[in-house]
């Protein structure tokens, strides 16, 4: 793979590492070409090495290596309208390793930005990836954060994406976390979001567990401001002996707050799925709703596909792939 942009003056070792990361990035679903465009803000981190940190007007990226990862500060200036998504690429190429990302995201008031994060661990046999993020979405700002993982075939990985998010009044935070390609290994996602007045937060989590994968999702949505709106949408499929546990909490703490939690977990084989929703309402003008479907696929969905000639495994796989999109 050719590494061109930002490569001047770099060592051959850097070029090799960058090429490996770009390959891994592609496996995670990313477009490596986008990482090399001059008008695209980019941060590429391999284990604890910052391979690229490319800023553009309105977006500032700082990253310092730690012993086992990096500490990053990502700032979007108030009022900035960032046309192209900011691309983040994290990964560990070797079979073993620890990567800890401690990140602060500061989205200035009125700014609009989208982040595309791809995390790839294609050779993982014994890899840990820990993300501890603090995200502040300023007043009237909009942040769309999409994170996709690729973990390779062995399942020898632990991922612990944790985030504390504050969405200020009138702000908008939409995030999608997906781990649907390769083995999950052990996943422990823990997001807590506080939502201000007339602000919106949407959390979507998708995971497909196979083998002896273990998926744990903790999501807490605190609708603190008047008119705050929140949605958690969890879509998990488990088969073989995989296990998923989903804990979602939504708090309606202010007048006009509206929250909804939607959880679908499809279970195949000897897998096991659990869902524990918790609804807390502290204001008599707030409302939080919850829906969950845990178990086999919907019979009608299945039969409709069988009636086109698919066998049951093919049909279930198609339903799951659609759901996990």
């Amino acid at each position: 793979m050719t590494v061109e942009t930002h490569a001047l003056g770099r060592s051959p070792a850097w070029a090799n590492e960058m090429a490996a990361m770009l390959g891994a990035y592609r496996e995670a679903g990313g477009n490596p070409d986008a990482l090399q465009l001059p008008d695209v803000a980019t941060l590429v981190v391999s284990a604890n090495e910052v391979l690229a940190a490319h800023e553009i007007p309105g977006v500032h990226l700082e990253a310092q290596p730690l012993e086992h990862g990096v500490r990053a500060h990502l700032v979007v200036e108030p009022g900035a309208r960032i046309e192209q998504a900011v691309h983040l690429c994290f990964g560990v190429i070797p079979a073993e390793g620890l990567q800890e990302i401690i990140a602060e995201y500061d989205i200035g008031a009125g700014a609009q930005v989208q982040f595309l994060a791809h995390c790839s661990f294609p050779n993982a046999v014994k890899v840990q990836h820990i993300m501890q993020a603090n995200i502040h979405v300023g007043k009237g700002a909009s942040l769309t954060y999409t994170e996709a993982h690729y973990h390779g075939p062995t399942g020898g990985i632990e991922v612990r994406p944790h985030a504390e998010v504050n969405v200020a009044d009138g702000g908008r935070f939409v995030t999608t976390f997906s781990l649907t390609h390769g083995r999950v290994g052990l996943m422990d996602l823990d997001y807590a979001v506080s939502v201000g007045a007339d602000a919106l937060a949407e959390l979507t989590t998708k995971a497909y567990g196979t083998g002896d994968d273990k998926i744990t999702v903790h999501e807490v949505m605190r609708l603190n401001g008047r008119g705050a709106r929140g949605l958690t949408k969890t879509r998990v499929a488990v088969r073989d002996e995989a296990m998923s546990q989903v804990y979602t909490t939504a708090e309606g703490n202010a007048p006009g707050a509206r929250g909804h939690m939607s959880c679908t977990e499809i279970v195949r084989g000897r897998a096991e799925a659990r869902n524990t929703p918790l609804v807390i309402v502290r204001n008599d003008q707030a409302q939080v709703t919850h829906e969950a479907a845990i178990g086999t696929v919907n019979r009608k969905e299945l039969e409709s596909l069988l009636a086109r000639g698919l066998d049951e495994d093919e049909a279930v796989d198609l339903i799951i792939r659609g759901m996990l999109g």
Partner: protein
Amino acid sequence: MTRPLLVIENLSLRRNGHDILHGVNLSVNPGQVHVLLGLNGSGKSSLAYVIMGCEGYTPDSGRIVFDGRDLAGLSITDRARLGITLAWQEPARYEGLPSEKYIGVGVREKEKEHERVAAALEAVALPPRVYGVRAADRTLSGGERKRVELAAVYAMRPRLAILDEPDSGIDVLTLGDIQRLIRRLADEGSAVLLITHREELTTTADVASLMCFGSILWTAEPGEARRHYAARCRLHVERLGAQPWDADQPEVRAALASNGIGAGREEA
């Protein structure tokens, strides 16, 4: 004489202690549109599920023969691979599954899938570029989802398409598109078993059967069936009550005779 593609003989179904189908006899010829006309609750959809082999719809007696082969014991997949398919009255919603992918599922010649899907969407008056990428989920209206369902059937090129009330939830302007699609299916070689309670759709058909309380009352050319639809079915319901098929009961015979109706002319 053309050999029927589908032959249903003396088919009966009980579910949850209720007789749903009783002594159904029906046949559909290749390339024929056979409309099954009946009021709500008459057993039309149940008959469709029995033919398709859906769970919980194994007949208690009788048999279904498709192209000379008894379908007993065959799974839905087996039946679909023989060329039978069903468009559900209320099609399932698939979260995140693009309509083009759903429509393409039944296309066996994968090299033709893209072309077939686009043609099928056009056939139901949905622009392929817009609707191909839209998920076949709750974001589609009821009418749009039904059209996607019909497109999926058309793209499959089945030998027998069972269309369960394809007109319900469809606006008047779109109804013409649906009728043209049904005709097109037949013209291109598919037999169509068209289930409806709206007699207007019989204009698309070659043959019509009236169904009431789980029995076929009458099979005739569509115009004749249409003329008898309301009167015969209403009388049948009113006079025969909970055991409409028991034509051997003297009171049933008397009720039918007094209205100038026989016990029902089963298809020869």
